[in-house]
């Protein structure tokens, strides 16, 4: 049988180990919950953006104007769990998806389907600018949280419809 000081030491160490294990467990569980919660919020943001793109696509389809440009600014949260995020359009398995992912950890993301790559409406994933008389749009296939005037746009030029993400800039007239 161990002496009293040794026994005291063993039980104290065991207790400390149990406490460390509990704290680790708590940390893992809270991380899992936080990750799931973040992912759900990002998916909701991706769904929201996909919904607005679908609406613009539908409006563009119903428009009788030959060269039609539609832009809608997005009302996105400044951050998700105090972290910045990026909303982009990506190709996954032959489909276009709106993907919202954390800037600090790209593995935490949410996505929402748009349509097939073979669809007649193309999705602009490159950088560029187009302008109308009232505003211009800098597009790049992605927008960031907290970005001012982050927008979705849809336009039809010479019968070719396209949609994308960008930043709207209103030209100030003197």
């Amino acid at each position, binding site marked *: 049988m161990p002496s*009293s000081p040794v*026994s*005291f030491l063993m*039980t*104290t160490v*065991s*207790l400390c180990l*149990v*406490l460390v294990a*509990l704290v680790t*467990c*708590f940390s893992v*569980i*809270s991380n899992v*919950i936080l990750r*799931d*919660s973040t992912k*759900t*919020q990002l*998916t*909701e943001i991706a*769904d*929201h953006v*996909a*919904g607005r793109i*679908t*609406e613009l*696509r*539908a409006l563009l*389809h*119903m428009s009788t104007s030959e060269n039609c440009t539609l832009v809608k600014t997005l009302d996105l949260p400044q951050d998700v769990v105090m972290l910045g995020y990026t909303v982009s359009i990506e190709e*996954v*398995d*032959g*489909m276009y*998806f709106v993907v919202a992912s954390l800037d600090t950890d790209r593995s935490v993301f*949410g*996505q*929402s*389907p*748009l*349509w*097939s790559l*073979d*669809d*007649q409406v193309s999705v602009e994933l490159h950088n560029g600018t187009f302008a109308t008389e009232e505003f211009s749009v800098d597009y790049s296939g992605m927008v960031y949280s907290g970005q001012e005037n982050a927008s979705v746009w849809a336009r039809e030029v010479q019968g070719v419809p396209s949609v994308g993400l960008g930043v709207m800039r209103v030209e100030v007239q003197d």
Partner: protein
Amino acid sequence: MQVSLDTLFSGLVLIVVVSSLFAFIYPAAYGPLSSTSEHELEELANTVLDKILLTPGYPNGWGADILLNLSSMTSFGLAKEGAHSPFELDLDKVMRLANSSEFPFPATLSLSPTTAATLLGLRSGERYGFMITITPALNITASLLSTFTLAPGYLVGSVFDIQVLNYARRPAANAEVTVLSILTVVTCGQDADISMINSSSSSAIADWSGRCTIDITSWLTVIKNELTGKELKKSTISIVVFAEYVGIRASRVFDFDLGSRLSGSSLGNYIFICLEEDQPPYGAAHVINATEALVLPHYILTGYLINETRGQSGLVVNAGSKKYRVYRTSMTLTDEVSVAFVVAKSLGHYFSIPSPRPPDLIRFGTGQPSAMKTSVQTRIVKIGALHYLFELELWREGES
């Protein structure tokens, strides 16, 4: 020893307290999370619904093109090409959702729910199940109250009780009800039987309970007088009830000519006649080369049929190699045509075969909702001149 036991006991108490805390924290944290997740499903369902109802799909005219291989579609949507208002659907695209096991529609023309799910992006990443239900925006029922003797042994319905409920299943008080009665009579001619189609329109206003009574006895009396001296071989009546309630228009076909082994459906300018030969008595049917198309509430278009079934005898329908006979109509069946009628003779009897456009109930999807949470989105849509209730159910398959 005493110290060890005390420490052990306090350690156990600590573990129990912390475990209880975890047991409390986990569901407490996941409760709101699951609520957020449910809300996210609503958002996705809303986007999918917009995609289905506001985009035409690609190719744009995929509904009417019966030669198109539907697996080559690159986008799924039901919106009518060139529609001037949102939520106006293409009748032919809606007909492609008809389930051939529930409605006499060739299975080769039906769109596969899996194809639709893939095109909607519900099969990439997280898998979702969906079910689309399309029903008339007004629930119309009709029952026969009285019959009229057109000739000895030939009874047809003459007084009908109509009830109209709105989409919330509440009585549609003061709904305007118009009943188009279609009476098909066949008399003996010198060389062949003569079939005639007569029609009459009657209107009434529904009472507080959404009910009204339509009596067509006086019209039947006129026809009875016209038939005097002729040998009647068959009489059959169908009624098409059209109701309008606060701008919402709906119709339903009631065929009181039971016993027909033939059934019909329609797509574009084509009519498909299906012969059910599952049980005796067996025998061929002869389709009369005439068709009537109803544009509600008052118009009837008449035309003839052109046989389009390759290798099959024209107007004779039998249990051959093909279950369906395909006829093209001489007139253009626009989306406003709510029902097309064809008359056929089978086993010595004449039958009137309605082809409703679209059928009263369309259910199209990957299966029955089976998840813990199902998002249900409902919209009133317009197909042709009528309104329908479009319901989309969406769920995560992983939650089953």
